[in-house]
């Protein structure tokens, strides 16, 4: 028996050794099995802006060895929204769907997609183990985009500041901004959608605005164009209304097209356009818009945004052709639209009135033609914005009461409507902001620093209309005392005291009538006054 057991042990060891021998030499050590191959090693996506639609998904084909139990496709990075797999035979279509650009913002985003084939790890397939694995690099470029520049009109030969709006600037290193081939003298990226630039003195012309960034394949898409116009030197003259006017709602000088646009109550509501052609003011054109209340030029100058009591009507500023009106959604019964101001998001803030009660604000997006009701409510507010669209003032209150109301400011950068801490009850004179929102004049007489909200001083209480020189250093008033235009140096504070006129009071070439609105040309050379009687064009007083 002892020998028998010894023999069995020898046999067992021999069998173990034979298995070991099979292990080392019985098989082909480099058998290619459980492999996987991809049709490409890299995929790239590109979107033209953070607001663009997501690019189409792309398909990569994977082929794998027979017997594959599971095909796992995993990914990391921000650029890929999802992957889906469709298997047929020993191949699979892997569809890679990129993330939506708005969820990413501007930038270049890298992702990795890993494709691994899994096979049964044991005879009963209770567990899987990896076979071959391949990776796929996904590069996704969401380009920044420039959309508007405000103001969109420059005065030729004059260097000035402007605000370039767009999206995705933070995702890249901005190297500079160009106006045509001319580089900006100063460029500051304020936020992902705002660049503050200073353009040099430019000859008259149209300048596509381009943004140069590092590491971008291609160029930054841009729809922003700066129009440089020569300074105007219109002689003093009056322009008659083509039809009887009782109330002037709004007055705009379209410097890009050398035209004066006036919203009046004539015929129940109309916009009158006076073109300046070949050295003279041409025949006015008129478009009737019932219940017209106010109007503003869009930031890019492409649309004249007119509001009626219940609708917004986009108007071609050159032909006065109207687009389909957009109804103010959820407008409360008895509320009416009152005023509109454009801000440099290529949008506008619209106020409403319900007498002495609060009523909701609205926002209008030019690009999408959408009118949206906001949650904020004010009392019969009046909105006016700076020419660069960076700020709008919302002054509220009702002339029938003496109660003061908070004056609000809308900062385009943050889109927040914030209290200025100033309490006033508005009168008939709309607020005024200079070109770059450094000064504001409330109720026609109260001069403030917009930057610090400090009260600078007061203009005469006899003021009927007021405007500023574009640089904010001068205020011009149309005074009821003797029907003259007065000039005030508001570049420095009076610590709340009265400003005294500078230079010589100028008697306009004609009396504008009642309810006067007054504006200055972008170069500050000409004042425009419009009242119930006529339009007055008056060179700015020298001072």
């Amino acid at each position, binding site marked *: 028996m002892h020998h028998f057991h010894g023999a069995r042990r020898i046999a067992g060891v021999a069998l173990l050794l034979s298995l070991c021998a099979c292990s080392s030499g019985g098989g082909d050590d480099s058998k290619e*099995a459980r*492999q996987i191959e991809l049709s490409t090693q890299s995929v790239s996506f590109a979107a033209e802006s953070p607001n663009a639609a997501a690019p189409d998904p792309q398909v990569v084909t994977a082929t794998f060895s027979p017997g594959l139990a599971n095909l796992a496709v995993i990914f*990391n990075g921000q650029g890929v929204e999802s992957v889906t797999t469709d298997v047929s035979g020993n191949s699979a279509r892997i569809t890679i769907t990129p993330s939506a650009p708005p969820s990413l913002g501007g930038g270049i985003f890298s*992702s990795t997609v890993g494709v691994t084939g899994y096979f049964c790890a044991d005879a009963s397939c209770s*567990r899987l183990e990896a076979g071959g694995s391949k990776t796929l690099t996904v590069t996704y470029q969401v380009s920044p985009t420039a959309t508007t520049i405000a103001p969109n009109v420059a005065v030729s030969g004059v260097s000035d500041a402007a605000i370039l709006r767009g999206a995705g600037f933070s995702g890249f290193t901005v190297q500079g901004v160009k106006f045509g081939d001319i580089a900006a003298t100063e460029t500051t990226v304020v936020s992902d959608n705002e660049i503050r630039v200073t353009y040099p003195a430019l000859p008259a012309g149209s300048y596509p605005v381009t943004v140069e960034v590092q590491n971008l394949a291609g160029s930054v898409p841009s729809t922003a164009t700066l129009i440089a116009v020569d300074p105007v030197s219109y002689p003093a003259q009056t322009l008659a209304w083509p039809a009887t006017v009782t109330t002037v709602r709004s007055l705009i000088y379209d410097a890009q097209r050398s035209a004066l646009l006036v919203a009046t109550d004539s015929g129940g509501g109309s916009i009158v356009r006076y073109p300046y052609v070949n050295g003279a003011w041409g025949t006015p054109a008129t478009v009737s818009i019932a219940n017209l209340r106010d109007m503003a030029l869009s930031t890019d100058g492409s649309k004249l945004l007119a509001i009626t009591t219940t609708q917004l009507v986009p108007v071609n500023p050159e032909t006065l052709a109207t687009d389909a009106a957009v109804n103010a959604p959820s407008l409360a019964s008895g509320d009416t639209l009152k005023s509109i101001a454009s801000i440099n998001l290529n949008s506008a803030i619209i106020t409403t009135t319900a007498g002495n009660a609060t009523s909701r604000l609205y926002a209008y997006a030019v690009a999408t033609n959408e009118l949206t009701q906001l949650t904020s409510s004010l009392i019969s507010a009046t909105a006016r914005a700076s020419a660069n669209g960076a700020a709008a003032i919302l002054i509220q209150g009702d002339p029938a009461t003496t109660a003061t109301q908070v004056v609000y400011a809308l900062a385009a950068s943050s889109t927040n409507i914030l209290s200025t801490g100033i309490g006033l009850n508005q009168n008939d004179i709309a607020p005024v902001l200079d070109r770059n929102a450094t000064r504001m004049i409330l109720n026609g007489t109260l001069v403030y620093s917009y930057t610090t909200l400090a009260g600078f001083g007061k203009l005469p209480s006899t003021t009927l209309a007021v405007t500023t020189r574009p640089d904010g250093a001068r205020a011009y008033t149309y005074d009821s005392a003797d029907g003259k235009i007065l000039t005030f140096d508001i570049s420095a504070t009076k610590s709340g005291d009265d400003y005294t006129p500078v230079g010589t009071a100028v008697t306009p070439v004609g009396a504008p009538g009642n309810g006067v609105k007054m504006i200055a040309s972008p170069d500050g050379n000409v004042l425009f006054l419009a009242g119930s009687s006529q339009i007055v064009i008056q060179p700015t007083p020298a001072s």
Partner: protein
Amino acid sequence: MATESVEERYLMNPRISLPALVLATLWSAGALAQDRAVEATQFTLDVLSIDSDTSDSTSSGTLGAGLGATFGIGKYFGASLEVNYLDTSVRTRDVLGDSSGGSRPSCSFENLGGSASVFFRRPTLGKVGFTYGTADLKANCDGDAIFPLTREDKLATDTYRGEAEYYLGDFTFGASYTTTKLEEGDDLKTTTLNVSWYPVDSVKLSLWGDDLYDNNTYGLMVEHQPQMFGDGASVRLGIATTDQSPKTTTIELGLSYFFGRNVPLKTRDRQYR
């Protein structure tokens, strides 16, 4: 004499199959011994950890647990029932790296299965048996992980296995043939050979090989019932590797706890489980 006559008849008839011959041999040999196929009912709790690493690909870690019962059916037959759960977590870093930013995706596979076996055993000679198992595999990956056979993230399997063991002193020689049906796909057929050696009754050294996917896989397993566990538990450590490309190396660490009679490992293997 009775044994010799039975063997002679089977050997002279070429239509008798090999399993039948093995069965007959065990049956006839068992007539000489009085041991039962299963001496006493035994319950077993298994926990295991498996690390699987495939070269130039993804590694994974598996944690699992199983609960089994083995009991006798009469003197010569036994049966066992087992349920188990395995969770395999893929180390996605291996394939995606850390450089792309964002959160790292996860990917795991779950298996929940059960099996039933019946066997004929003579503890002095060996056993033959048949096992049926069924399980559900489920993938849970960030991204997409599908089983081509189902085009879904889950796969049902049915396993049929015939197995035989021959006890020769301190050695056990085993062979099994397994057919696993993956849903409606082709069967996965695997032959496994193994030999175990008990240098002492509390230690088992096993060497095995199979031809899964027509490629060779080899493994070495050591199982030990330490004295400190009072013959009531065993630990095992195994390593396996493939001879194909990409090569996969698997290391398994397991712990079994036995409810019931405490016996040496060799005895347990041949008379209790």
